[in-house]
């Protein structure tokens, strides 16, 4: 028996009232948790601009956004995978695998850009299918299952290309490869619409779509219900296995989309091109937990997280910080955000 759960026996008693005014330091801490990251991002912008005038130009803004776009697209997928309490560690490997698959489709098999996109998205679904088999069917814990999938598809990307990069004019069985990247496909990575780069547009549209999906549809609500209390969701009639599969499918498709954009920007299939995207996208999604006190994976937070990483790295680069400090800076940012979203979390659930 849990005496704490027994409520006040008086029928007229309402819920325990919170103290009229929480103490000032507590309120400051609460505000810092809620708005800390957004404020920090807004403060960073004029600081970088003051230190280097070239930072605050339209051109540089687009460079930042362009660099953020692929990470952001992948991170939105990771975010969806996290809503059910899962975790897609295979996202980065999926990006790399799709880069190779799209390059092969056009260069080695001389097929159209449209076919390459379709094959790339299908490859994302294959990665997702393996994740679903492992987590939902074989009941392997998400973190280690997707770690396994990550290795599988990093390896598979090497096998299908014999460990070599795929570019136009490469030698295949003694003869030059027949195809090359189509113009339309390359436009996805380097083109602009009204001077906004295409990947940025894709990122913006996807962010809006994921936001609406998670916050305003029953599917999103069901995903969060599973993440919050899977047993309660099951007993409320939510088909938990299907929704967990759906989450991985969306994550796989987003990673594939990220891979397509990256492949288009590179114009070739580079071995290991997807490698940095796992840590960056996971960091963006986790930083997103802390945005506006959501304390859970959310689309808006992930966008802020991705922008944060992009701005910080671009700003530091323009201040001539060496490239090899980038990983450390991202790590520090992630650790800070984790403290923001996990520390003091208890308060919320206290009776």
């Amino acid at each position, binding site marked *: 028996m849990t*005496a704490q759960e027994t409520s006040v026996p008086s029928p007229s008693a309402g*819920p325990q009232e919170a103290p009229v005014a929480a103490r000032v330091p507590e309120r400051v801490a609460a505000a810092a948790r809620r708005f800390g990251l957004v404020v920090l991002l807004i403060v960073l912008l004029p600081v970088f601009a003051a230190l280097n005038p070239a930072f605050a130009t339209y051109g540089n803004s687009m460079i930042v956004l362009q660099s953020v776009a692929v990470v952001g697209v992948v991170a939105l997928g990771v975010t969806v995978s996290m809503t059910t309490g899962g975790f897609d560690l295979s996202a980065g490997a999926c990006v790399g695998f799709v880069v190779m698959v799209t390059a092969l489709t056009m260069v080695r098999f001389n097929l159209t850009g449209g076919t390459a996109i379709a094959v790339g998205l299908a490859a994302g679904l294959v990665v997702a299918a393996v994740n679903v088999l492992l987590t939902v069917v074989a009941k392997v814990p998400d973190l280690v299952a997707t770690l396994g999938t990550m290795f599988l598809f990093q390896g598979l990307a090497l096998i299908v290309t014999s460990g070599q990069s795929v570019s136009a004019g490469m030698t295949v069985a003694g003869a030059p490869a027949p195809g090359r990247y189509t113009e339309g496909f390359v436009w996805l990575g380097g083109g602009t619409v009204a001077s906004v780069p295409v990947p940025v547009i894709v990122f913006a549209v996807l962010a809006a779509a994921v936001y609406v999906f998670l916050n305003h*549809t*029953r599917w999103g609500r069901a995903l969060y219900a599973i993440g919050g209390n899977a047993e309660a969701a099951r007993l409320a009639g939510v088909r938990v296995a299907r929704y967990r599969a759906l989450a991985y499918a969306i994550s796989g498709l987003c990673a594939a989309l990220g891979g397509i954009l990256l492949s288009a920007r590179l114009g070739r299939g580079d071995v290991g091109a997807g490698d940095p995207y796992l840590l960056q996208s996971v960091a963006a999604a986790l930083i997103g937990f802390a945005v506006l006190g959501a304390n859970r994976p959310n689309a808006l937070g992930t966008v802020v997280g991705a922008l944060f990483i992009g701005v910080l790295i671009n700003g530091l680069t323009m201040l001539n910080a060496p490239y090899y400090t980038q990983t450390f800076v991202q790590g520090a940012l992630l650790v800070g955000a984790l403290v923001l979203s996990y520390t003091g979390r208890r308060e919320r659930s206290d009776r």
Partner: protein
Amino acid sequence: MTEAAEPVVSVSGVSKRYGATWALREVTLEIGPGEIVGLIGTNGAGKSTLIKVLSGAAQPTSGTMRLDGRAVRHAGPLDALAAGVQTVHQNIDDGVVFGTTVAENLTLDSLSRKGAGWFTTRARTNAEAREVAAAVRLDAPLDAPVETLSASDRQRIVIARAVSRRPRLLILDEPTSTLSTVEAGLLLDIVKEMAAAGVAVLYVSHRLAEIEDLCHRVVVLRDGRVRRTFAAPVDRTAVVEAMLGDLAHAGPVDGAGSRAVADQAATPVLVAAGVRTRPGGEPFDVEVRPGEILGVVGLVGSGKTELLEQFYGARPLQSGGLLLDGLPYRPRDPHAAVKAGVAFAAEERSAQAIVPGWSVRAHVTLPRLRQHSRSGLLSRRSEYGSAAAVIERFGVRGPGVDAPIETLSGGNQQKVVVGRWLEASPRLLILDEPFRGVDVGARADIGRTLAEHSAGMGVIVASSDPQEVVELAGRILVLHEGNLAGEIRAGDATAGRLATLMSGAAA
């Protein structure tokens, strides 16, 4: 046990308050050396709190406790251990470390003993383990991983460790709840031997047969007070009667009176033929008619939840077949049950119904999100409408539809998780222990609203406290250890008859 011996443990006038609730009131209890005292009571009677106070996990609000005549006040569980109080908790697997061997588990305590040295060797560990194991006649291979052992052997490891610390008082909290009858028998023999060696034992169980077999005395708790003490040989029926208290026959709550008479001509909402609570149980039939509230009562472990979850697709049907409104019904999962018009409010509210941090509104609409969608998007208006309706009907008191559900009192949370199903107008509404941790006022609110708004549907209310069921139901099924012990009309239900059936004394 000699009358003159000084009691090992002596608790006098102990009370414990949580917030505004008294979990224990003026409890007085003595256990002498070699004496086995049974502690029994329904959920919420105060058993767990008494165990916590004795084992140092909670401090009494008032009252005194003596061990071997010396006044003690445990600041924490370690103090109680040092004073010679050993507690074996209900969940066996909390007491063993998976991934290590039997020997390592048996010798866990020596890891933190002073002077144990820095290194462990297999030979020394095994020698020590053999000594510990001998006390409970455990002859499992010492090098076997602990997870390969049966539940009963794992249990014996936990008890062996407790015994090796030479306790003065041993508290066993439902030690047989996961064991088979044979395994339980072995355990009882060990407990008897330990008592013969002079250890005082407090034995908490819902299994009356064990209490009867084992205990020199039985203490019955109800509402935090010691209601009665029985000396062996105990009369099971009398024990259960003391546990349950008098049935208040003030008549059913308003509106429920008419419910008692179900429409006998109509097709039953649910017909369950040849169902069982568990494999090997006796098959029986259950029928619920439209407009009827059927009560299901039984002590903890009698199979109520196991039966009801089969009707909801939450666990596979053991045997027999189901008809819903005369049509074959075999739900694969809760989703299928909900679609067919069956609703289920589970026993453990916080583990099985509450999504942490979610608002009242989101809890209300979760089972029926599709109905609240307009061209793919959730309609706030529709959601608010539903949530407001539940709040209105059930008189939910709290800060509003958007407040996190945790900010509501237990009773008001329960109104939300029960009320949301009524909104769906199901054909069959199944409520498993709907009044657990719910105050009297909220209980009356829920009962009244159920009686008023369930016209035409079938309702099943299960509880281990018959009082809660008698107020609502027209007909009551009594389960005992997985089998149907009998059926009574609510009007004929007396504390004595229910106690006879619930204790299995009728069989």
